[in-house]
């Protein structure tokens, strides 16, 4: 099983809905939280987030394109964050989800150093590491209606640019969304085999153009139109 997200860069408008929904759910989640804020009303407010949205530009004006890239844990198949963790706090579940058991974490940040994507952030109050859990406490919570057994980010995303599921299941939401549209993995040559996939911005659809009609003079138009009273 390889549970993960498919994130569609063709429809992500960079609205941060996923990031805030994540912070809200996971801030009090027993599996992921707390996610403290520091200097919340002060000079330089900052805090712990499990999902951050970055905004990029490609190409040069006027052929430029703006691309919004949400980033959270990729739940790598070969997750270096897990193997380097000395305490056993970081672990990978059989379903592929990479988690931190905060009760075991000594806050050495070594896993964060090993993660190429910046997906792990330290809770500086408790001194333990935080990361995306794929909302493991939602997706398996049978008390929730089935439609709600999804990560908070997926539920919130207004452009449905996020899908969740098992990449090993060809019929899952993610497999279907990613089919033929996946971008190469980020920092592929590191070999960590990130499970999350990003879907490429699509090519603009082609418009079949109506055969052009010749331009005429205004007087001709009015005469023709007055006579025929028709257009297309």
């Amino acid at each position: 099983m390889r549970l993960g997200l498919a994130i569609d860069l063709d429809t992500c408008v960079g609205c941060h809905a996923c990031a805030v929904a994540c912070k809200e759910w996971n801030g009090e989640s027993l599996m992921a939280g707390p996610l403290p804020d520091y200097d919340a009303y002060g000079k330089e407010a900052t805090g712990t987030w499990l999902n951050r949205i970055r905004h990029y530009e490609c190409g040069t004006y006027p052929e430029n394109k703006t691309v919004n890239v949400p980033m959270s844990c990729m739940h790598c198949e070969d997750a270096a964050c897990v193997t380097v963790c000395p305490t056993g706090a970081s672990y990978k579940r059989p379903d592929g989800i990479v988690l931190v058991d905060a009760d075991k974490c000594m806050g050495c940040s070594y896993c964060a150093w090993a993660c190429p994507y910046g997906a792990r952030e330290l809770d500086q109050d408790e001194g333990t590491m935080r990361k995306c859990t794929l909302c493991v406490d939602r997706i398996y919570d049978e008390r929730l209606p089935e439609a709600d057994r999804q990560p908070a980010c997926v539920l919130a995303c207004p452009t449905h640019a996020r899908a969740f599921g098992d990449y090993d299941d060809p019929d899952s939401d993610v497999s279907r969304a990613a089919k033929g549209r996946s971008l190469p993995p980020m920092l592929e040559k590191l070999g960590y085999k990130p499970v999350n996939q990003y879907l490429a911005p699509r090519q603009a659809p082609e418009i079949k153009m109506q055969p052009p009609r010749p331009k005429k003079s205004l007087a001709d138009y009015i005469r023709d139109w007055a006579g025929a009273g028709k257009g297309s």
Partner: protein
Amino acid sequence: MIETTSQPIAFEDTEGQEVKRTTCYMCACRCGIEVTLNREGRVRFIKGNRDHPVNQGVLCAKGSAGIMKQYSKAKLTGPMRRKPGSERGAGAFEPISWDEALGTLAERLARIRATDPRQLAFFTGRDQMQALTGLWAQQFGTPNWAAHGGFCSVNMAAAGLYSIGYAFWEFGAPDWDRTKYFMLWGVAEDHSSNPIKIGLDKLKRNGAKFVSVNPVRTGYSAIADEWVPIRPGTDGLLALAMVHTLLSRELFDAPFLSRYTNAPWLVIDAPGTAKDGLFLRDEAGQPLIHDRKQGTFVGGLGAGIDPSLFGEFDAPGGLKVRTVLTLAAGRYLDERYSPAVAGPQCGVPAETIERLALEMASIAFQETIEIPVKWTDVWGQEHDKVVGRPVSMYAMRGISAHSNGFQACRALHLIQMLLGALEGPGNFRARAPYPRPIPPGQLPENDEAVMAAPDKPLGKTPLGFPVKPEDLAVDKDGNPLRIDHAYSWESPLAAHGAMHMVITNAVNADPYPIDTLMMYMANMAWNSTMNTAGVRDMLRAKHAQGPKKGEYKIPFIVVSDAFDSETVRFADLVLPDTTYLERHDAISMLDRPISEADTVADAIRHPVVKLDRDVRAFQEVLVDLAGRLKFPAFTNADGTCKYKDYPEFIWRFEKAPGIGFLAGFRGKEGEKSLKGEPNEKQWERYIENGAFFSKHWEPGEQWMRHWNRDYQVKAVEATFIPKVEPIVMQIYSEPIQKFRLAGQGLYEGPKPPKAGDRERLVKYFDPLPDWYAPLDGDGADDGEYPFHAITQRPMVMYHSWDTQNVWLRQIMAGNFLYMNAAEAKRRGLESLDWVWVESRIGKIRCQLKTMEGVESNTVWTWNAIGKQSGAWGLEKGASESTHGFLLNHLISEHLPKAADERSLTNSDPITGQAAWYDLKVRITKAAPGEEGVWPLFDGVTR
């Protein structure tokens, strides 16, 4: 592969948790939310309501961050008055009781009402309760009421309502499921944010093309298939160049134009006379058309006509008449509208303009959609299908906030009309209670005697839609009757008022001084104003001489807000409001309900969190004051209050028999909708239903509602429209021509006494959509102020009232001025340079960033990030006050003028829409050592 481990999952402790459904209020979108409360009643989680028609389960960043707003440090905790002896604006307050607060206020208001009700100016911000505030102002008897629409969106609303019977903004929506080509004009992240996002996803999935016309490529434009960087303020010209292309290639929907628009109506050509430019009408006033079959003039609204779309005819009485479309063709086929001429002015290549127009036409005419559905038109003819030309458009702020926005928006509607792409499958479609007659038959109060009459309500609502010069709110000398000069010769169609002029005019006693300025949720001392620093001085301006020497020019300021905004500091009396999770609200059918194209819907809020401080919902305050002041609509015959509180007012009040604020669950048992007796259990029924009501229109009622009999019968019943009749879309606007005639001195009725007004009417009141250069930029030396400077709010904060939210402020707590990278290089500027930004009225210093996605002649920034130090619960030195800046300081509320001329509002000359996107600036590198945002405003920390 690495080893895996299983450990038990610790699930949410749901014991004692409760889920309540209500409506979000973090912006103007009105999404349905499910609020999970933990056993202490504290909000645990806010999630989108999947059954809700607006957001269908999704939720934006603001919506989720609502929890941090509920627990914000910036919340006001109790009523306060300015400390005796302290200066206004210093922010020194002392707590008082509600009894005292409302007692003193009621006493003052009673005195005003008994002498000259106009002395109360009541302006509200982005609230969603204008049906109530408008009724309250009307009952008080003051015309000086409006919300922030004059600052925000009136150009969109008015252009639509004077052209197509509904509008961009909240009165229509693209048919996301069916459209195959979508053109988005300007920044539009401000309204319907989740529905648009949901829609953009559908477009992409369906393979539709998404074109964005916008000087800046962020937000929705980021994912557009094609980005058209345009020079700000030239959208109208670009649209008309597309019209030129469509006409010159004979690409228009003749049947649609002849049946559903006034394209065949006959315009009198009699220059120099009072009839010039008016429609040829019969004795009953019905516009006439030339019937091709009969060869005669017949009523244009009747059944079975076959109108000539083009032609020039001799009408009885020796009048020369031409069809509207003939006039339009004559106008737009002129070379000045050709892509080759217009393109360079818009900064868009001519080929691009032409191609985009042809793409739209190709989709419209080659990829037509037909939906088999039986429907009957208002003429009684039965149809077995609807035909859609699947091109749609949407536009908001980017078009609206220019002084030519009204005409620009009409130009967009003209494209839609030419393509026959309105109200059909794949089109921009109306949302109930729209469509309405064009314009809606609601005139603003303009009787000076009624306005001045003591203790008497106005006879009409303060705001409405003038159709002729007689409808203006001016005195016999042509001077404005309203404090904001709405409906004056300066802003004749100011359908949303002109909030941005209130403070300036009040301080200048123009047309008269006022006693009390009451503001609700309107940050008029900061980002909801032009010339912010100047306006802040005006709020504390005192008479320098005369009997009132030393007294404030605006004697009393009342502010109601839930949070400690910049404007709260300028209050003499602060009435603290609740948060949206703590109160009742009606998102009313009488106002701006949440209908979608296929459904009629409205919604409520109800308290889901218990109040923990001494604050009151402003609605409750209004109902309370209405009782104290004995407004007729709120008082029983025996003088007692009719309603004990706001919820009772909402379910019991009837505007007309059976018509109330909420359209759902009416009738004794809640079995009726749209119309029915008041239902005591209406609130409960809404709450049970997830805080909204929605009803699907029958398939035969869903389309072409301007001409759909079955729909209109129901709409008449619901009082959406007065009668079943064709709502003919107006390419050519006769009301506007009447104002032009007044400007020309030809109108048989009121005419503007001042030459300046006459010129403006002649110049800008074009009955056909036209384009003129933005007023403030017009004549300004391009060399002196070469850049257009515009703003937008980030999606995480749009319309979100406040930005102190501790999660959202982490995402953005400071702003930069963005410039095109190549342009910056040409000017020797680099990212992170400190620069001076100067306009004709002032300068600011800020930090530059370069980017690719901005048109070369444009600079832009995120709006309303800058905060006054100490406001919004932020600590001293918060980066919003040290690294955030407002462009508002650079925008004058007045147009440039010669010394002897009077000041004219920097607004659209037709609608009075504040033209804050017309700003032109120059940018210079700050000297070495000149760093930091300037100006800074002294903070107050309480």
